[in-house]
């Protein structure tokens, strides 16, 4: 299933609800465009809800890293919410778990940006 992205704003935090696969050709470009669009509009706090992301490949992992660095370069922040087990395991394997601020609960994730 290709990636779908729904955007909403909660207490100054843009939450992107992601669903599907983040892979080359099936989501990585959409995610990149979404992040760059938000950062370009001056949004500083972005939370990627990964609860419905069932698959990510090396390209998708690279896209998450790019989102993180793009945000950081603009004094913005991207955090991850609700990793599925497979995505969690991949982030651990690749040590990206040490890079991202990862939350399990949306309310505390929103609060953590303040």
């Amino acid at each position, binding site marked *: 299933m290709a990636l779908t992205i729904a955007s909403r704003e909660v207490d100054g935090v843009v939450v992107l609800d992601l669903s599907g696969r983040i*892979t*080359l050709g099936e989501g990585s470009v959409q995610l990149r465009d979404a992040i760059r669009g938000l950062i370009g509009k001056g949004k500083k706090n972005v939370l990627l809800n990964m609860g419905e992301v069932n698959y990510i490949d090396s390209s998708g992992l690279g896209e998450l*890293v790019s989102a993180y660095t793009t945000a950081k370069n603009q004094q913005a922040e991207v955090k991850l919410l609700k990793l599925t087990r497979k995505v969690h395991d991949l982030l651990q*394997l*690749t*040590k990206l778990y040490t890079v991202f601020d990862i939350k399990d609960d949306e309310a505390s994730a929103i609060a953590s940006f303040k």
Partner: protein
Amino acid sequence: MSGAKSGRLSFSLTSTMESVSEVESAAEKLAAEAGLDEDECFHVTMAAREAALNAVLHGNEYDPAKRIAASFENTGSALVITIADQGNGLDPDMLPDPLAPENLLRGCGRGIFLIRSFMDEVHFRQLHPGTELTLVKHLAPAAEKT
């Protein structure tokens, strides 16, 4: 695509993302039919996908004149998947370590690492031109399975 040949499926594929999906599907079917559990199926499927991605993107660089050769076999003791491109060749010893602190924030360079992490054996062979990756997942003897 060519047909099955004594239990070994062989494909000749274009250098496109559709081919990556074909490889992924074939690997998933091979792993499922071998009775691997969900995690092992995921590992084999992802490793095959990453190898195919590598061949299409970095090997053949989407060149329509170049083909990807893929084969899938259950030997009884192992699943053996080969993916070959017709590109300029890949030296696995020259790949940067994606876990090194200076590489953690790179946007690429994790594919071969994931393949090696998920398979029991990974072999590289230079084809001049091209590179062939052989991915092996050992199967537990039937008596050891619960």
